[in-house]
């Protein structure tokens, strides 16, 4: 029986229709066999259009639906849900991707993009004509989530999941939790310190039975998929016993001959290879930095708590969903970039924040009292060349906040801000207004004429053609130059390759859609949140963490998942058991059974994963994959080649 099909072609605002003539696509498709109605729509995913589709399906007894729009990764489920609301089995819906693989890929060739869109829609129509009603396959899903990264985003997400009754494994690569937030002093807008925030989160986590925190832990492999991920985690020991004598430990730190830059203070100070954590870092146990330790044995002589016999461990964790909260790195300017490394008194914003935190009474850095401070904005962000052409969003507010805190904490501080336009959005604008009231001076330049920095005999001068004063050249000679650096992806993002996570143009992890599916990735069951996804302040990171927690929980909360009923099926008439399909199946889903006198292959539906590996090996072509049958694929190929 011929199907009655509905076809909708989306403008996607102008994302599609700016390059594809959607009316022409509609006209070309109207005469196709089975097409009962064809419509163009501004946004196929809008509520109004979805309602219209439901009404069209019901009123016209449609038994097949095609939407030509963006990638199916984004809206396949949306339109399947539309079908279900119209009481049409959702597997009678076929998606045509005319945006990512149409208008965007061929924005340089409008005629070509339109011709391709027509063929893609014809191909989808060819497939839906043969589609049949199916029921999903139900599989168990492990009710547990792994959160990778124990910064504020990861910790907050773990607490949220725990509140929902979901067991969580919180995995932190460093030996201490808190991430970047533990490095900050007073935060805007709450006025609590980073230490207070991390302490609150850590104490909350420590009191929960259903959160397992593993520090010094790195994910080294992942097998399995949504509902059943198996992570292997390498746990590095601290080489110090739990019950450590603090007096002896102090002696051990004193005698340790190895001195390395302290990354907690962004290398403005140094530490020993055996070191204690900062008060804002948890758990409160010291650690030996084994990569830099020379094993000289001096510490062992004075401290019995040192234990080099501790071994690396491999831990296996089985979870239904994985959440990435691996954070960011601050941008490190190149040598000579706005005077960086040419003077000891040119520092980055994170370094400046640590300097103000470490000083009391007077602001002194490298023996010099600091009074006049210049800030150059957008260093490593909004660059016209290179990778970092994005705005890091947090740095304008952070720089203004840090400058105000310096002014409040120390006397006689003057702040000079060299900006490219201040982006203190939302309530952060109040901070900018306060800064102006407090007498901070702001200059502004365009991208093509940034401020210049000269360093002569260690003295820094910063010059700008200030557009606020009609391009007048203004020079400031500060005691300290602060480079307001943005966020970049973690330099070691090896965990991304383990999970095959896609990255965007900015090299941060990429969500499926920034508005519609903001914490999901194309890898089913893996969510992302916080600054590993792109520059965010703490509030934004936590908001995304809560969203990702809800999404990850939705994958595991029922204890089962509905999977696609895309499995192999055997034509028993054609099959003459040879065993090749059984050999090809990696899941042991094919068995031989006797049908009267004949031996034939049979598929175990609950085990078959629908990979199709058994298909090409069958010498008599007796196996098809549901929804990918010879008939369907060859009809799609015919449609794609129909105008040749």
């Amino acid at each position: 029986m011929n199907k009655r099909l509905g076809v909708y072609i989306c403008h996607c605002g102008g994302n599609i229709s700016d390059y594809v003539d959607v009316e022409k696509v509609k006209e070309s498709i109207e005469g196709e066999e089975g097409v009962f109605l064809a419509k163009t729509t501004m946004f196929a995913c809008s509520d109004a259009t979805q309602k219209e589709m439901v009404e069209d399906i019901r009123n016209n007894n449609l038994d097949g639906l095609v939407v030509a729009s963006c990638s199916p990764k984004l809206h396949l489920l949306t339109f399947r849900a539309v079908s279900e609301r119209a009481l049409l089995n959702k597997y009678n819906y076929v998606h045509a991707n005319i945006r990512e693989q149409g208008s965007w890929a061929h924005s340089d060739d409008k005629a070509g993009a339109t011709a391709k869109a027509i063929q893609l829609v014809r191909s989808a129509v060819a497939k839906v004509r043969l589609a049949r009603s199916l029921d999903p396959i139900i599989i168990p899903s492990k009710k547990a989530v792994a959160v990778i990264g124990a910064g504020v985003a990861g910790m907050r997400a773990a607490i949220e999941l725990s509140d929902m009754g979901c067991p969580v494994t919180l995995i932190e690569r460093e030996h201490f939790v808190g991430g970047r937030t533990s490095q900050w002093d007073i935060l805007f807008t709450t006025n609590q310190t980073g230490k207070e925030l991390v302490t609150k989160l850590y104490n909350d986590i420590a009191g929960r039975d259903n959160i397992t925190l593993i520090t010094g832990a790195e994910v080294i492999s992942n097998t399995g998929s949504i509902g059943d991920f198996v992570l292997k985690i390498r746990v590095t020991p601290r080489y110090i016993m739990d019950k450590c004598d603090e007096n002896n430990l102090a002696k051990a730190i004193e005698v340790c001959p190895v001195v390395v830059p302290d990354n907690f203070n962004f290398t403005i100070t140094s530490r020993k290879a055996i070191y204690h954590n900062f008060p804002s870092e948890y758990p409160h146990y010291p650690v030996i930095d084994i990569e830099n330790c020379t094993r000289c044995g001096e510490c062992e002589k004075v401290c019995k708590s040192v234990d080099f016999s501790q071994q690396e461990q491999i831990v296996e964790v089985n979870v239904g969903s994985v959440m990435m909260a691996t954070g960011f790195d601050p941008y490190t300017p190149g040598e000579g970039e706005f005077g960086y490394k040419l003077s000891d008194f040119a520092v980055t914003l994170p370094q400046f924040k640590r300097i103000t935190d470490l000083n009391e009474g007077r602001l002194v850095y490298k023996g010099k009292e600091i009074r006049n401070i210049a800030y150059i904005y957008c260093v490593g962000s909004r660059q016209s060349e290179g990778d970092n052409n994005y705005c890091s969003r947090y740095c304008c507010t952070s720089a203004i906040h840090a400058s105000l805190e310096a002014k409040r904490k120390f006397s006689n501080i003057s702040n000079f801000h060299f900006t490219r336009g201040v982006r203190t959005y939302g309530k952060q604008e109040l901070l900018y207004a306060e800064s102006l009231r407090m007498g901070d001076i702001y200059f502004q330049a365009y991208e093509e004429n940034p401020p210049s920095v000269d360093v002569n005999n260690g003295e820094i001068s910063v010059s700008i053609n200030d557009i606020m004063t009609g391009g007048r050249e203004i020079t400031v000679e500060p005691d300290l130059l602060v480079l307001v650096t943005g966020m970049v992806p973690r330099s070691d993002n090896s965990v991304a390759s383990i999970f095959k996570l896609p990255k965007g143009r900015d090299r941060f992890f990429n969500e499926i859609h920034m508005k519609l599916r903001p914490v999901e990735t194309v890898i089913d069951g893996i969510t992302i949140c916080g600054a590993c996804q792109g520059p965010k302040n703490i509030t934004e990171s936590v908001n995304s963490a809560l969203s990702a927690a809800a999404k990850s929980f939705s994958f595991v909360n029922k204890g089962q998942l509905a999977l696609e009923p895309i499995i192999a099926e055997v034509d028993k008439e054609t099959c003459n058991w040879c065993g090749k399909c059984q050999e090809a199946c990696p899941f042991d889903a094919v068995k031989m059974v006797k049908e009267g006198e004949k031996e034939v292959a049979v598929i175990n539906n609950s085990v078959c994963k629908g990979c199709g590996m058994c298909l090409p090996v069958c010498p008599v072509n007796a196996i098809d994959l549901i929804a990918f049958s010879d008939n369907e694929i060859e009809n799609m190929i015919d449609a794609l080649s129909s105008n040749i």
Partner: protein
Amino acid sequence: MEKKSARILVFSTEKISDPAIDMAGLLKLHYPPTVYTIAVPCSSGIKPRWIMHAYEQGFDGVFIAADGSDCTYGESCTEKTGRLVEVTHQMMKGRNIDPARLRMAAICSVCSESFVKQIKSFNQYLLQSTKS
């Protein structure tokens, strides 16, 4: 009239290589608009008869954007996809079709640039071979 671009059928995989092809579009990495994709669950499940059908229907080339070692269905995917390409090459030779009109490359979920590079080079080959 001389063809501007060859007609290429790409078999991509839903979880691995199709996201890379989507991302190529997102990044506005252009390739010929006569490249059409059919996404399947796994590259090792492509039947040689589908590929042969594409040639019969006038496609100049078929490109398998394979899962490679990233395949979620198992490590044997690479070997099995290689084997089906071998079988298809034999069938192509039997029908006097240049085996180089079938190409396979592992395209991971972030290999957008690699996909576009491969397709452009394949397109060039097909245009030259049809000219000669």
